[in-house]
């Protein structure tokens, strides 16, 4: 893929643009990946650490892998110390103790260190637990690629995202592929955005979840626009809602079994049909206009 230097200078954008969706499977990753490849020059961050998929399409060359750990306590029962204070303190009910008899539920532990603080001296120790990893690399043409991956069984989504946050640099256009939903992992992923692209599908489920996402972004004062993916399925309620409420529809992508099949093989939309590239570039210029206004 050739890099369009003129485009790069023209944009030289230092915006943070996140791609989110209340409903899952509406095409967040598709949009994020195709935007990145169309612009060619950006920092790409996959914040969907529970189900990271962007790497299948960007095929980055991973250069660094960093383990993410938290600390879990262990209790030296043989000291005969009384651990009941640890159990009393723990807000997550991960410690149950009667005197020196103690049971620890690791899946409930957040690793706050409270039990170490309040427990009997020298009888509570800590060890590192790996909850996932961060990967860094580069993808063609000039994409700095970052992703997080949460290990199944741990509820530490935000801990992995926090680790990704440390690599967020505003030195170029930043694209953030968000996790689905409208709760804390989504909020965490969009929090630094100058603009958020909400991807939806024209069905009652898509509309219902879009309206919740819009509330989230309004509360956070983040400007947004909507992409309607698989246009033609379902009904036109999403479009009507956007028009009635003056919400910018950035793009409509038609429903096409060919697109779905090419996606299933790990191909991108612009590989399927190169004419999308111009539309995605135009979209970033448009977003830049909105933010700088």
């Amino acid at each position, binding site marked *: 893929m050739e890099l369009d230097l003129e485009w790069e200078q023209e944009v030289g954008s230092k915006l943070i643009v996140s791609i989110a*969706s*209340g*409903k*899952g*499977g*509406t095409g967040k*990753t598709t949009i994020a990946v195709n935007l990145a490849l169309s612009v060619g020059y950006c920092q790409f961050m996959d914040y*969907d650490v*529970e*189900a990271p*998929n962007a790497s*299948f399409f960007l095929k980055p060359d991973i250069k660094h892998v960093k383990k993410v750990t*938290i*600390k879990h306590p262990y209790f030296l029962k043989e000291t005969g110390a009384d651990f009941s204070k640890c159990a009393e303190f723990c*807000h997550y009910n991960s410690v149950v103790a009667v005197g020196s008899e103690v049971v620890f539920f690791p*899946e409930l532990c*957040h690793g*706050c*260190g*409270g039990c170490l*603080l309040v427990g009997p001296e020298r009888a509570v120790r800590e060890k590192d637990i790996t909850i996932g990893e961060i990967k860094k690399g580069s993808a063609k043409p000039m994409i700095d690629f970052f992703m997080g991956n*949460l290990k*199944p*069984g741990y*509820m530490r*989504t*935000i*801990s992995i995202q*926090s680790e990704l946050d440390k690599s967020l640099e505003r030195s170029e256009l930043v694209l953030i592929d968000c*996790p*689905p*939903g*409208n*709760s*804390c*992992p*989504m*909020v965490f992923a969009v*929090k630094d955005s100058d603009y958020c692209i909400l991807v939806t*599908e*024209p*069905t*009652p*489920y898509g509309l*219902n979840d879009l309206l919740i*996402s819009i*509330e*989230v972004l309004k*509360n956070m004062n983040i400007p947004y626009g909507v992409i309607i993916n698989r246009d033609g*399925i*379902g*009904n036109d*309620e999403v479009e009507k809602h956007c028009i009635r409420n003056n919400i910018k529809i950035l793009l409509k992508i038609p429903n096409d*079994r060919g697109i*779905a*099949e090419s*996606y*299933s*093989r*790990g191909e991108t939309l612009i590989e399927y049909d190169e004419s999308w590239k111009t539309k995605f570039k135009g979209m970033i210029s448009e977003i830049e206009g909105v933010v700088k206004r």
Partner: protein
Amino acid sequence: MKQLTIISGKGGTGKTTVASNFIKLARDHVAVDCDVDAANLHILLDPDIKKKEEFIGGAVAGVTGECINCGKCEEACRFGAISDSETDIKIDTLKCEGCGVCEYICPVDAIELKTEGQGYCYISESKFCTLVHARLNPGAENSGMLVAKVRNDAEDIANKYNKKVLIIDGAPGIGCPVIASLNGVDYTLIVTEPTISGISDFVKAFELTKFFDIKTFVCINKYDLNLDNTDKISNFCDKNKIELIGKVPYDDKVPAYLSNKKFVIDDSESKAGKEIIAMWEAFSGYLYSS
């Protein structure tokens, strides 16, 4: 009482479509929507809300007293939620986990943990059964706690009215709401699709159900979209002794049924509908055996 949770790893693979059609086919059951921040089960079931209750979530820390800016809380916080400002501290409620360490360590008792309403729980009646669902406030935390609350309410109702089955629609991903929706259930159905992303997320979802030692079934939705990938999923199932309980063909009409508030199983022409019915019949053997 037997409990079945439907999850997927990847979003949008068809969890809610499968769940709502199962709910229409089932008897002696309670429906539960555990995707509390993007709940959709009520859309097709169209129930009347009978009871609404506010959900008080977990605590977050806040500065309530005179801060002396000693920095002890910032140092102790493992979540990076506390930062210094000129005169006092700032607590980032997004990062705060409500662990209480800062409250404990503060020498002048300037920090307090506070709880607040973070959403609503509903008990509703549909044509088919009772539906227990919720709405997390947009952007709120503690979705896992709300899922646990919804499931408790559903279990209470099932016990009270002697219901035999709970059908639970889960959230995408593998994080806290998903874990809370799997905790202690008898069976889980992972709905996946034959795409590269679908496979990767399915494997992670399966690792999760294995971690919690829950009997797992798999349904490949839109299986004919990519037959090579469908083979890969089915080989993975063989190797890991997971029962592949259904393969639903790609059907462009499914979203149209939804838009017209219709169930795909009611169209006798629909191959997707037939497959969902066959899948439910296979499940019934597990769910209604004593």
